[in-house]
């Protein structure tokens, strides 16, 4: 691989960090571990930043209206391929190739940038943990696989990263493996992800069978050449891919692992289970969107799953009392938004929301981590309250995050959420329904985020014996940077972020009646757009007002409401009993099947029985043959003599003649 951008360095630097901290970390002094943990993501971010700067200088025009881009010396997509072929079997040719285009550049900046901030934050957060080096080696491993996933030029390389981030996620969820709940949560995440990965694998097999290639650009070319590719096998492939995406990005019905994943350290929840890894599904759908474009049905499924997940998770988040669980369900809900955006073919909007969500959700999680850190491990919202005086910086950045996720202008979330809702509104058949669901979700989002905010920071301290303290600067610094990004991150939409992504994501097949998100806000006639934005903001404010009423002006109201609607409250508080439902319909039958059939019949019966049978036969034969070993020298000699006599007999007697003689007798008798 060679090239002026050195893409191959981006994953390899974190991998070096993983090796150093993973192998030597326990023996190295702490400051070296810290240095490695900070330098490697910084260097990776530096390489990405260099690439971005190169592209900015050589490729992008100074501003969008200035005319067509001047494709200078570097052409996007820019590919770096390992010089040796990787898989070369008959017609199938797979290279180990990395691709940089507008989409992967944005994703790389988010992954390495937020990753770097969270590494810095972790230095403060994990300071007193025994597994300090182990933690950072896992985190570096995650960065390695995530950048492989993002840079992948074909589905197989992406799958490596895809599985790898799953592994890193498993390791980090179960980081405190002494706690049974953490170990179980890690296993749950891994197993549920396997179901999604199964879909991804099937999709890859179908791609090889039908297209003969796994390279994204070649798939797009083949689809473009033949307009006959519509529906049918393309739908099947797209749905299998969506299954993979639903597993990784915690969508219905595979979302159940993400709330449990909060057992991991909070920075991990921020980096992996909010900002980057869980958005891999959205990224994958956007990366391979040509397939979805050729299957309106699959797109419809994506949009429906997204919208359903968004409102479903938002309703659960209304009544959760664990600060991280609220954020976890909020993440699921926001990921639903992204899939809603993908489903209405507004991939740019989805990626835009992915980016802003990475900023404000990482911020919210890290701020929550700061609160938990300050309270010495307390995560229950009911035991917080009145913290704004004790944790002023955390309070300020959390406020920014809450405003951003609620969609209040001019914070980042407003622009991205608005872009998705706008695209949904214009989608052909079910657009208005999707839009309404999205709008309602926006209201719920504003409500539960405001609830979290009120319960944590305002009111009277509900657990007076604790002495909350503000976090160290290594934690406050990343919070402030993320807060700035959560404020300003959305503004790039006004400067043509959608147009920037358009070469990769913009076009959509005309006959599916698609709408292109190519018109930047500044050039569009503002009437309907403005109305929709105002409606969205009003809904968000309404959610905020309800929360204000419930948790500030009339604090008794939530309890009254819960008492008035006990069934609904119970349903929500128990997360619709989905875990119980899965437990009863899938886990328990599977366990019984494993116990009765696999363990007793197959393992003990067939396998164990076969082993015992073989052993028994050998023992039996040995019991008989051991009489041979009498220890009597003369019996050995007799056997030897008998053997020699047998050999002699065999050699000296002309057996063919004898047999022929007997045969002749027999035949002669038969003849008579």
């Amino acid at each position: 691989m060679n090239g002026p951008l050195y893409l191959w360095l981006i994953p390899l630097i974190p991998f070096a960090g993983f090796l150093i901290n993973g192998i030597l970390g326990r023996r190295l002094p702490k400051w070296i571990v810290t240095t490695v943990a900070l330098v490697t993501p910084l260097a990776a971010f530096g390489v990405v930043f260099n690439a971005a700067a190169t592209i900015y200088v050589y490729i992008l025009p100074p501003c969008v209206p200035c005319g067509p881009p001047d494709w200078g010396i570097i052409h996007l997509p820019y590919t770096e391929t390992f010089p040796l072929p990787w898989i070369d079997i008959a017609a199938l040719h797979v290279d180990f190739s990395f691709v940089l285009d507008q989409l992967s550049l944005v994703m790389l900046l988010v992954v390495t940038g937020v990753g770097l901030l969270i590494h810095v934050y972790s230095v403060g957060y994990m300071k007193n943990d025994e597994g300090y080096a182990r933690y950072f080696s896992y985190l570096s491993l995650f960065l390695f696989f995530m950048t492989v996933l993002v840079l992948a030029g074909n589905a197989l390389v992406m799958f490596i990263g895809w599985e790898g981030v799953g592994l890193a996620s498993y390791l980090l969820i179960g980081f405190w493996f002494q706690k049974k709940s953490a170990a179980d949560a890690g296993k749950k995440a891994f197993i549920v992800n396997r179901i999604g990965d199964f879909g991804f694998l099937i999709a890859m097999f179908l791609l090889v069978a039908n297209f003969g290639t796994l390279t994204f650009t070649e798939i797009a070319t083949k689809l473009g050449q033949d307009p006959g590719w519509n529906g049918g096998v393309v739908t099947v492939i797209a749905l299998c891919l969506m299954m993979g995406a639903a597993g990784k990005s915690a969508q219905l019905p595979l979302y159940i692992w993400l709330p449990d994943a909060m057992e991991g350290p909070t920075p991990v929840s921020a980096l992996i289970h909010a900002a980057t890894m869980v958005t891999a599904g959205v990224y994958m759908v956007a990366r391979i969107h040509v397939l979805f474009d050729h299957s309106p049905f699959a797109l419809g499924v994506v949009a429906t799953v997204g919208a359903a997940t968004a409102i479903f998770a938002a309703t659960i988040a209304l009544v959760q009392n664990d600060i991280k669980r609220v954020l976890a369900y909020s993440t699921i809900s926001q990921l639903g938004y992204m899939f809603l955006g993908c489903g209405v073919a507004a991939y740019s909007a989805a990626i835009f929301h992915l980016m802003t969500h990475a900023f404000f959700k990482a911020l919210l999680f890290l701020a929550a981590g700061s609160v938990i850190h300050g309270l010495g491990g307390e995560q229950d919202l009911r035991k917080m309250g009145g913290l704004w005086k004790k944790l002023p910086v955390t309070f300020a950045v959390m406020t920014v995050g809450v405003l951003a996720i609620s969609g209040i202008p001019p914070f980042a979330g407003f622009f991205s959420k608005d872009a998705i809702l706008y695209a949904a509104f214009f989608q052909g058949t079910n657009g208005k329904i999707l839009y309404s669901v999205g709008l309602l979700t926006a209201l719920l989002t504003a409500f539960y985020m405001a609830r979290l905010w009120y319960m944590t920071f305002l009111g009277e301290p509900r657990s007076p014996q604790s002495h909350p303290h503000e976090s160290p600067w290594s934690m406050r610094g990343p919070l402030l940077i993320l807060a700035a990004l959560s404020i300003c991150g959305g503004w790039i939409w006004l400067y043509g972020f959608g147009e920037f992504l358009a070469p990769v994501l913009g076009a959509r097949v005309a006959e599916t009646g698609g709408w292109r998100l190519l018109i930047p806000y500044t050039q569009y006639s503002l009437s309907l757009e403005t109305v929709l934005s105002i409606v969205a903001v009003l809904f968000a404010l309404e959610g905020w007002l309800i929360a204000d009423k419930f948790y500030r002006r009339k604090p008794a109201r939530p309890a009254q409401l819960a008492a008035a609607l006990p069934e609904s409250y119970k349903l929500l508080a128990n997360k619709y009993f989905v875990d119980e439902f899965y437990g009863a319909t899938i886990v328990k039958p599977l366990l019984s099947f494993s116990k009765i059939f696999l363990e007793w019949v197959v393992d003990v019966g067939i396998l164990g029985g076969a082993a015992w049978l073989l052993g028994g036969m050998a023992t039996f034969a040995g019991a008989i043959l051991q009489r041979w070993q009498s220890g009597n020298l003369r019996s050995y000699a007799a056997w030897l003599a008998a053997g020699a006599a047998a050999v002699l007999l065999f050699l000296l007697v002309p057996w063919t003649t004898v047999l022929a003689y007997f045969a002749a007798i027999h035949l002669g008798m038969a003849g008579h």
Partner: protein
Amino acid sequence: MNVFFSQEVPLSWYLLLSAVLFSLGVVGFLIKRNLITVFMSIELMLNGVNLSFVTFAHQWHAVKGQIFVFFVMMVAAAEAAVGLAIIIAVFRARATLAVDRIDRMKL
């Protein structure tokens, strides 16, 4: 010359004697209990074989058989030395030379 050769002992007699010697050796080896007698039976077998070697060597005018006999005799001498030493050692240790009772290595 022809007359002289025609009065020679026939080949089959030599071979018969060789087979008788070998069989006596085998039978002696199998039925005798005394380790020394067993040892002597082995010598008898070896010499039976030697006789057939010499017979054929003479018959075919091939010197290989004769040479082989020298080798066998040499090995037999060495074997006798080692074997007798072992017999003495066994007798010292067990105070018996009965083959059937030297069976400590039985399972």
